[in-house]
């Protein structure tokens, strides 16, 4: 076992150099550990499934503008035509697209009255084929029938009697019940208007990916009688791009409207999470660069210290120290410095995390990030110092007899 005492005392003779490295390691650790934590959180968020068949779905908006434009007739005709295309699994009119960033939200409550708080949820207006088109699973209860679907007029503020909610929403509304037991329960919209839950689906995310209630949504059985109308189309595997073209051509035949915003769900997802993806890439670059900068700093300073101690090393070698002893000396010296560094680093990491939590409402990081980070930085230190330390072992014992 190497005596730590002499190494430590030798270190104290060059306090500043060692201290600089230690502080550098500490700051590096604070930035790297927090970055890793943020990257992990963001990547978890970007991986959340929206519940729909993203790869095979797209949507398009049709905006009628002529005076005699009939919204109702056009929607019925469009849906019939699109559904008839081979390659299309199903198509619906919808008021908003999951993960797209824009949509419609309401509050639902289990007791009537303005004094009760509603629970926020996204609304998707679909017909009886919504479940199939969105590719969501009905877990309990039953789907809407064609007779349940109504037309929502411009400016209408009342709601249908039946709704289908996501499992997450059912559990949130009735936390004490199994989701299946929410079938037949009445919830209230607009403070007092009752609606009965007739079905529960597995998963359908809200349009806003940054929303706390992103798993809350419900299906409302209605068509929107509007001149501007969006269709959501699900195709057979691999048919999406071909179908996008066909649907566009089909709809463009009607010259009394404008066809716009034809987009795949993959595209809107990519756009909605672009900030997260960018952040992940930027922070990864930061981690790599910082590790390199710090390693090079350690290499530089260690080489310097080896050069300065050539004579001392030569003397030790002449007195019988093996190459391994010399190697171990510098490795141990770096271990001591890194040890101080990561201890300080642990404090800085927690401090930086607290700042980020307070200022930017991040969730606090789990405790195990700290020891893992400490270990990682120590390893980086050891790897970085290995080169200069090996160079030190090549110093000949005869150096002791020369003056440097």
């Amino acid at each position, binding site marked *: 076992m190497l005596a730590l005492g002499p190494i430590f005392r030798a270190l104290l003779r060059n306090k*500043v*150099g060692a201290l*600089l*490295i230690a*502080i*550098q390691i500490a*700051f*590096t650790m*604070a*930035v790297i550990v*927090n*970055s890793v934590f*943020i990257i992990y959180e963001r990547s978890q968020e970007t991986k959340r499934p929206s519940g729909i068949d993203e790869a095979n779905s797209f949507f398009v908006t049709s*905006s009628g*503008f002529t*005076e005699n434009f009939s919204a109702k007739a056009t929607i019925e005709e469009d849906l019939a035509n699109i559904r008839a295309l081979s390659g299309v699994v199903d198509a619906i009119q919808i008021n908003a697209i999951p993960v797209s960033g824009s949509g419609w939200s309401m509050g639902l409550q289990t007791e009537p009255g*303005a*004094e009760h*708080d509603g629970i926020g949820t996204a609304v998707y207006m679909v017909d009886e084929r919504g479940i199939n088109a969105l590719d969501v699973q009905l877990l309990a209860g039953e789907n809407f029938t064609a007779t349940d679907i109504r037309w929502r*007029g*411009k*400016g*209408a*503020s*009342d709601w249908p009697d039946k709704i289908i909610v996501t499992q997450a929403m059912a559990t949130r509304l009735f936390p004490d019940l199994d989701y299946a037991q929410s079938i037949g329960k009445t919830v209230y919209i*607009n*403070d007092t208007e009752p609606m009965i839950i007739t079905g529960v689906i597995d998963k359908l995310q809200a349009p806003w990916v940054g929303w706390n209630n992103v798993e809350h949504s419900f299906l409302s059985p209605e068509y929107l009688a509007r001149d*501007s109308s969006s269709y959501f189309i699900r195709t057979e595997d691999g048919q999406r791009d071909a179908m996008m073209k066909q649907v566009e051509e089909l709809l463009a035949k009607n010259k009394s409207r*404008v066809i*716009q915003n034809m987009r795949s769900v993959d595209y809107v997802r990519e*756009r909605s999470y*672009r*900030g997260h*993806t*960018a*952040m992940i*890439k*930027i*922070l990864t670059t*930061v981690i790599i*660069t*910082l590790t390199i*900068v*710090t390693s*090079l*700093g350690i290499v*530089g*300073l260690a*080489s*310097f*210290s080896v*050069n*300065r101690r050539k004579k001392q090393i030569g003397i030790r070698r002449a007195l019988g120290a093996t190459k391994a002893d010399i190697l171990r000396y510098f490795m141990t010296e770096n271990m001591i410095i890194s040890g101080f560094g990561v201890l300080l680093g642990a404090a800085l990491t927690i401090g*930086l995390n607290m*700042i*980020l939590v307070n*200022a*930017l*409402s991040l969730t606090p990081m789990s405790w195990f990030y700290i020891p893992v980070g400490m270990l990682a930085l120590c390893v980086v230190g050891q790897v970085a110092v290995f080169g200069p330390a090996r160079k030190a072992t090549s110093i000949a014992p005869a150096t002791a007899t020369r*003056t440097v």
Partner: protein
Amino acid sequence: MFSYYLKLAAKSIKKNPLLSTLMVLAIALGIGASMTTVTVNYLMSANPIPEKSEQLFYVQVDSWDPHNAFNDSNGEPPNQITWTEANNLFNAQQASKQVVMAKSGGIIVPENQDINPFEAVIRLTTGDFFAMFNTPFLFGSGWQLASDQQRAQVIVLTKRINDKLFGGENSIGRTVLLAGQNYKVVGVLDAWQPMPKFYDVNNGAFDESEEVFIPFFLKETYELPNWGNTNCWKSPEGEGFKAFLQSECINYQMWVQLNSEQEQSDYLAFLNNYVSEQKALGRFPRPMNNQLLDVMGWMANQEVVEDDAKMMMWMSFMFLVVCLLNTIGLLLAKFMGKSSEIGLRRAIGASKRDIFIQHIIESATIGLLGGLLGLGLALFGLVGIETLYGDFVSNLVSLDWVMALTGIVIAIVASILAGLYPTWRACNVAPATQLSSQ
């Protein structure tokens, strides 16, 4: 003497190219990262209308739910107003200038049949908009108060739409068919894109400005759709468009121009008085909570600078700290390695001051090189940010001279500071010991 020291610095840098390169690179990386993030933050928090940002005030009144504040966490009044308030407060004409507005959209059918009909984003607004926000005009001008009151079918086009519809000609007096109605062109804006788009931050603070501008009250006449954020704390009473307009839903913004503190306190008094009157009518169930914030106050209130941008800036400052610590360490190593040289110079008559200046100049040279390289890295970083975030940041990633110069100055100052301790150590090399060891 200065040029001699510069020569010495260059010599010293060349003598130990690896260590020098490391230092230059470290400073360049730190400066590059910080400048990139600072630029984004600086542009996000830029004053979009510096010449009068202190005279323009965003109007907020608390018309919200008696049971829940609009924003539970801070009790702020709602971020928009209702149709009723937009009408009443505008018609009162109590400020020297005032504007009410909303976002909408409609299909434009061009006269020229070769151009397909397309959807345009509409800003519904009132005539003072153009004078209040200093919009540049290419042709014509905005409209007068009378046009607002008479709901005249007039339109102001942006340059882009004028180029598209009329090939960039002076189109004053021509008509545009928008959302089924004909509008007479009274003005064409020159390129105009305030950054941030402060007049309506609820609908994307860095979005493009709208494509056409028409009188606000036409929304009611032609039942123009609600675009942008709409929030309701209770649903409209009754069915249809009229019921929505009369509801407590908020979808409209109001700005007033108040030129003095007297005007500001008068306007706030007017608002308080107005709310009291409405309370008597059974509206405004919450406590009196009216707010007038000027442009920068409103930007801060709405947290226009994104959290991610702030976070990146802080991380990049810590990055810079690491790089500077690295530089201090390496400079220390470098200067101590020159002990014998310094000892020799001291022995043949150089004063401590000479040694000090020589080494500070060497540090500054490294800083200058690092700063220049860092500037390059920052340009690279900004291109990277644009690639990663897409078009919507394209207005936020340009580097101006002020930023570039600041970056270089910071690099030099930082490296001089980083060089202070190593230099001090170098100055304290005693001539005698070094000579004796030779």
